[in-house]
Structure formats: C-alpha cells, structure tokens
C-alpha cells in the first residue's frame, strides 16, 4: 500500500510533514481514519489527538481544533495550535488545567465558562497525549 503526504500547519510553523500510511483524526462528527487514495474531503476537527503511522510506527499529535483537507493524496491539517506528543509541556498543561478548573468553579459569566471549558478540554487532552509517550 502507498502512502499519503501529511502536513500539519499552524500559523506559527509546520508541525508535521511526513509520508504517512494512515491518519486518524478527531472530526467534529466522530473520529475518522484516512488511508492513501482517500476521496477528497474537507472536515472540521475538534480538540483532540490525531495519530498517524509512519513506517509502521504510530505518532500522536495534539490538535486544538481546526480543519482537515484531503485532496490528491495530500492531507493538510489547519490548526490554530498543534504539538507533537514529545513537545507537549506537561507542566504548563497541568497549570492550565488547574487554572481552568478554578475558573469553572468560580463561574461568574456564561462566556467565561465556555472559554474555560475549552481551555480545560485542551489541557486534559494535552496531558492525556503526554502521558502516553
């Protein structure tokens, strides 16, 4: 089986650029897998972990939501932030989780609460991925 070109780009840098055998993404309507020669697809992604296989080895990447575009055997993931499992700053994520939890406990404004919830979700996801390495 062939491979597909995977690019994970954020506004600050290209996080991943690899020839992957398989990619699994956290789509907003459920996780989905992409194999080489996949039909053209555009999907929104939610906060979660994306994994891809290169030379039989699985790698994990944290994605803070975004979009995945598959076309012509090239898959591009546009995310506002993304980190390889090995690059995750566990201490920072831990601090972010505590902060978000405190904010949720205080709960003064509805807008603040949704933002804190998103922050909490991101922090927990980061910690999960970091814990797996």
């Amino acid at each position: 089986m062939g491979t597909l070109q995977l690019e994970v780009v954020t506004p600050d840098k290209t996080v991943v650029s690899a020839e992957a055998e398989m990619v699994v993404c956290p789509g907003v309507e459920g996780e989905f897998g992409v194999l080489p020669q996949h039909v053209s697809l555009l999907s929104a992604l939610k906060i979660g972990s994306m994994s891809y296989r290169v030379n039989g080895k699985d790698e994990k990447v944290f994605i803070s939501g975004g979009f995945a575009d598959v076309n012509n055997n090239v898959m591009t993931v546009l995310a506002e932030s993304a980190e390889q499992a090995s690059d995750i700053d566990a201490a920072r994520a831990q601090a972010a989780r505590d902060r978000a939890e405190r904010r949720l406990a205080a709960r003064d404004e509805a807008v603040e609460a949704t933002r804190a919830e998103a922050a909490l979700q991101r922090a927990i996801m980061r910690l999960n991925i970091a814990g797996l390495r």
Partner: protein
Amino acid sequence: MPSLKDVKMKIVGVGKTKQITKAMNMVASAKLRGAQSRIERFRPYAAKYRQVLAELSRKVEGSAHPLLAEHEEKKNCAIVMVTSDRGLCGSFNGNIIGQGLKLAKEKTDVGMTVSFACVGRKGRDAARKSGYDMLTSYGDRMGSIDFALASSVAQEVIHGYETLVYDEVWLIYGEFVSMGQQPPRCLCLLPLKTPEAEEEPMKSGGAHCEYLYEPKEEKLLAELLPRYVKVQVYRGLLDTSASEHAARTAAMDNATRNCNEMITALTLLYNKTRQASITSELIDIVGGAEALNG
C-alpha cells in the same frame, strides 16, 4: 569661531549618538530576520486556508453568512489600525496613521461614525489625539504578537459586525514589500470578501465534484469565515512587525551615515581652529621678540 574645547566636545557627542544609532540598526536588523522568518512560516497556513475557503465558497454560492452580507444602512465604521510601539523608524508610523485618518475622514464625510481599534502605542496615541472613538487598544504588544492577540482583536470586530454595531470594518497595516518599501495598506475586513482561487485551482479536473464535507457545507463555512478574519488580522500584525524593523534598520542606517558626515565636518573644523590658534600664538611670540629686539 567656536573654541577648541567646544568642537572637541561636539565631536565626542556625535560619536556617542553614532554608537547608539549603529546599535539600534543592528538590533533592528536581527529582529527583522526573526519577523521575516515568522512571515515565511505563516505563509503555508495562509495559502492553504485561502485555497480551502475559495473552494468551499464556490460550492455554497448564494447562501448568505452574516459576515459576508453587506449591511444596507451604513452608519458605523470600525478601523483596526496596526502600528509599532516605538518611534525612530522614519515615516513608517506616520504613513500608517495618515492613511488611517484619511480613511476615517472619508467615512465621516459620508455620514458614518468612525471608531478605532489600535494595536501598537503610536497608533493608539494618534487616534486618541484625533478625537475619534476608541474601541480597544493594545499597547506594548508588538514585541510579543501571537495568534491569540489577532484572535481577540478579530473576535471583537466580528461580534460587533454580527450584532450590527458596525457596518464596515477596515484593517490598516504596514505591508512588508521589501527592505526599502513598507507602504500602508488598507483592507476591507468586513463585510468579508471570499478569496478567489487565483493560484492553481485544484488539480485533476473533476476532483472537486466529489468532495466530501463534514459537517455540511454551510456549517463548515460558518466555522471557516470568522477564522479567516483572524488569519487576516494576524497577517497584518506580522507584516507590520516586519515592516517596522525594516523601516528602523533603514532609518538608523541613515542616521549613522549622517553622524559620520558630521564627524568629518567637525574634525575639519577642529583642525582649522587648532591651526588658527597656533598661528595666532606664533604671531604673538614673533611680535614680542621683534619688540624686544627693536
């Protein structure tokens, strides 16, 4: 004729100014490299984003999204102005501010109320002085710009546009064209114009007929559009930051050159003054000797 000591002090003073301008020149050019490489790294994201959005908006033509719709009654206008925090970079900030005020005047002339949102201290100060409404301002942030900053600026105007507080939103920033050129750019942020797929429309002929969308196209577009505004604001921030450093490099280079010229001229004056004083002393001595002999 200035005294010898005065000229000497002046030379030392100009020499010190030269040291500062030279240091600033080097710092600015180092920062410029950083800013340029950030633009470089942002480019793939922006290009891909534009492509995806162009493709999608062609698909869902006709369906109106609040950010795409033009408001019928145009009463309020918001101008997002991105300048630098510090001066000493030639006419860079002046140009951007001039452009901003010109636009504000045009809008006021057609009966609209203008309010400013400023990133960068220089623009903020100018907008405040001009007496226009100040929406928000972010001072001292140009040194540490990130996507979150662009996001919060964009979020504010998007919210304003959706709730019909603003009927037009403009972005003004210093575009980074080259080392020597940083013209101010005016960009209509909202109502949003979807980008045309100019560069290489997706290859392999009929491929885009069988595109899968998840969730539905309209919902996707609703997700993509606000982020596109953020992408554009972020681009404005990055460009302004690079332009600022380029402008400062050039301005400081000029200043250093002027210092050199001044030092040359002053040294000449110093030598002339020194010679003149020696000559007059000699005349005194000779005159005295003559008087004794005579």
